[in-house]
């Protein structure tokens, strides 16, 4: 009887302790589409198992643009949520304005530095302290392809260089297909351009141009060459790209109307939803000339400053859960990305994810790891917007020479910076 009594008392005590530290935290995120929403729900359940309450604050749309707008208005009114999905340099901006808290305690306890790549965890630290927790790694420089269309066009392997690409594009066009599926939205134009720039200029040049924003690099011959290659891609697309969503472009590859698409690995979700298996029904390979490079897009959750001890505990518990091995596995399988923890085995991930991890390791070793500008990892939102304007305008204006676009790029970046 006595042990049972102690157990009951212990349980009661434990309950009391969790009660004391339990809190409701509001979580702002834009995980609203099928698989993502399921993953968010999973996280919510796990957090609630720890006794906390997850107040859902999902804002759909615009790849997070709408969520950021809502976050700003909440912050201005002095009432930001406890946790918000923010990424890249924006985390620093929020941190510098003094909005973010400190979750070093859980980071130390769980030894985050031992399994997070330092290149990526740097985004989540403000003045050397963890203020945010990374979730996943997306790779941008992917070339997705429909093998059936390639076969019908007489092509047996995906192009490794841009010259090969344009030769293949001609064959595909002659066989009656669209060589490259694309959606004419500024961020998609910029996605394709940055992939071209990585290939043409290499990782060091990419960093000089798109991270350091070096005016010389922005107007250099390499940049002009990249712009010319990019413009040439317009000929490999169908005429009706204007305003098309990325997933419609992906469905052109799925249905066999188009042969290839350049897009981040969230595109995998569309292939999976269509019941296709990687390397059989569709191919995923590095975009031409970027085999040992990896342009990344990392989602993070930033922790806002809260006074309540219980809320602080809830933030840390959430951070711990996000980086727990089983959440990393479940979530990233649903999202198409790879775990941000380098010690999570990818055994039951698909071939594309495995090849993504290999590319990441290779790129990390060879200095080929670069932040994606198109996805807000490289520069501030204002510079990113200015680059988008120039790129998309150049791509859609048949008469603008590449030299002029490079000049405009440099001046727009200067004006926005």
């Amino acid at each position: 009887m006595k042990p049972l009594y102690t157990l009951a008392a212990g349980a009661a005590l434990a309950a009391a302790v969790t009660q004391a530290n339990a809190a409701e935290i509001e979580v702002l995120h834009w995980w609203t589409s099928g698989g993502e929403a399921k993953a968010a729900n999973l996280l919510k359940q796990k957090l609630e198992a720890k006794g906390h309450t997850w107040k859902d604050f999902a804002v759909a749309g615009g790849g997070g643009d709408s969520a950021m707008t809502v976050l700003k208005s909440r912050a201005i009114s002095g009432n930001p949520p406890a946790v918000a999905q923010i990424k890249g340099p924006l985390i620093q901006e929020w941190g510098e304005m003094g909005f973010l808290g400190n979750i070093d305690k859980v980071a130390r306890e769980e030894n985050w530095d031992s399994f997070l790549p330092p290149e990526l965890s740097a985004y989540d630290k403000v003045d050397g302290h963890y203020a945010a927790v990374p979730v996943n790694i997306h790779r941008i420089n992917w070339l997705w392809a429909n093998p059936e269309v390639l076969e019908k066009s007489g092509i047996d392997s995906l192009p490794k260089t841009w010259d090969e690409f344009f030769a293949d594009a001609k064959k595909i066009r002659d066989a009656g297909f669209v060589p490259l599926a694309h959606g004419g939205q500024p961020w998609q134009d910029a996605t394709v351009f940055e992939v071209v720039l990585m290939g043409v200029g290499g990782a060091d040049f990419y960093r000089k141009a798109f991270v350091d924003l070096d005016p010389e690099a922005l107007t250099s011959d390499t940049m002009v060459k990249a712009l010319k290659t990019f413009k040439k891609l317009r000929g490999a697309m169908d005429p009706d790209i204007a305003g098309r969503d990325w997933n419609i472009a992906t469905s052109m590859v799925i249905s066999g109307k188009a042969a290839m698409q350049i897009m981040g690995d969230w595109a995998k979700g569309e292939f999976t939803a269509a019941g296709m298996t990687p390397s059989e029904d569709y191919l995923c390979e590095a975009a031409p000339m970027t085999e040992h490079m990896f342009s990344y897009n990392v989602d993070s959750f930033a922790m806002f400053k809260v006074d309540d001890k219980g809320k602080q505990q809830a933030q840390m518990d959430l951070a711990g859960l996000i980086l727990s091995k089983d959440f990393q596995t479940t979530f990233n399988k649903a999202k198409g990305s790879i775990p941000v923890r380098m010690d999570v085995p990818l055994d039951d991930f698909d071939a594309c994810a495995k090849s993504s991890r290999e590319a990441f390791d290779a790129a990390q070793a060879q200095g080929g790891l670069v932040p994606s500008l198109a996805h807000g990892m490289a520069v501030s939102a204002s510079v990113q917007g200015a680059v988008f304007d120039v790129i998309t305008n150049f791509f859609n204006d048949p008469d603008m020479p590449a030299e002029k676009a490079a000049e405009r790029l440099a001046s727009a970046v200067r004006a926005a910076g």
Partner: protein
Amino acid sequence: MTPTDSLSRASSRRAGRRSLAGTLERVLPRLVVAPSLAVALFFVYGYMLWTFILSLTGSRMLPQYNFVGLEQYARLFANERWHVAATNLVVFGGLFIAICLVLGLALAIFLDQRIRQEGALRTIYLYPMALSLIVTGVVWRWLLNPSLGIEALVQSWGFENFRFDWLVDPDMAIYTLVIAAVWQASGFVMALFLAGLRGIDDSLFKAAALDGASLPRVYWRIVLPCLRPVVFSAVMILAHIAIKSFDLVMALTGGGPGYATDLPATFMYAHTFTRGQIGLGSASAIMMLCGVLAILIPYLYSELRERKHG
């Protein structure tokens, strides 16, 4: 106590009550209007002032009060995209208002010929106004998409050389906005004109007919001048639809191809809210306000002054 006494007391009591009622009568309208006036002053004019103040600061992601003078305006006018947006507004607004007025008037005049099933026709023409601009935008995006909509349809009929690819042509895309907006709003303008036409006394027509005036002449010289107040209201309503057009652009073209169909409203939204350039965005908002005032004040002034004299 004499009867007169009580009588005078009663009447004085009544007078007191009457003066209370009188005060209430005088004060009540002001009391009722006061809250909405206060709300309007604060939320409309107060925020206009705040936007103006922000436009003089170097605010980026959040409002800050580090004043930089007119630097944001200088940056705005050095911005290529702003020029595109401003030009687009002139093209879009001008065409939209003109075509809506002409089409609305024509429809109203035809409907006014005492035709059969007028009610049904009126509803059909008015119905687009019931749709949200987002729906209009999406529907027209499909119709105008060369590989899905009108072009594909006509080509499938055998006219292989038929081209109607304005939506994907950076030089023509702005006109697709005009098409969709006119489709949406001209029925409403028709209803305005129809109401105006019904207000014109029939005897005017009869008198003009007696004088031997032809029907077009009657419309041109008599009916149109009578409709002037309606034109005034229609222009007011259309102008504000044109200037605040945001949802239509978002749904129909997304500002594309490139930023060829950007309007000041979408420019302002992008810079203020998604690009963390609140200062620049506020400057563009103030320029929009100045543009509206520059057009509306002279128009309001001339219209209202003439009406007072006439």
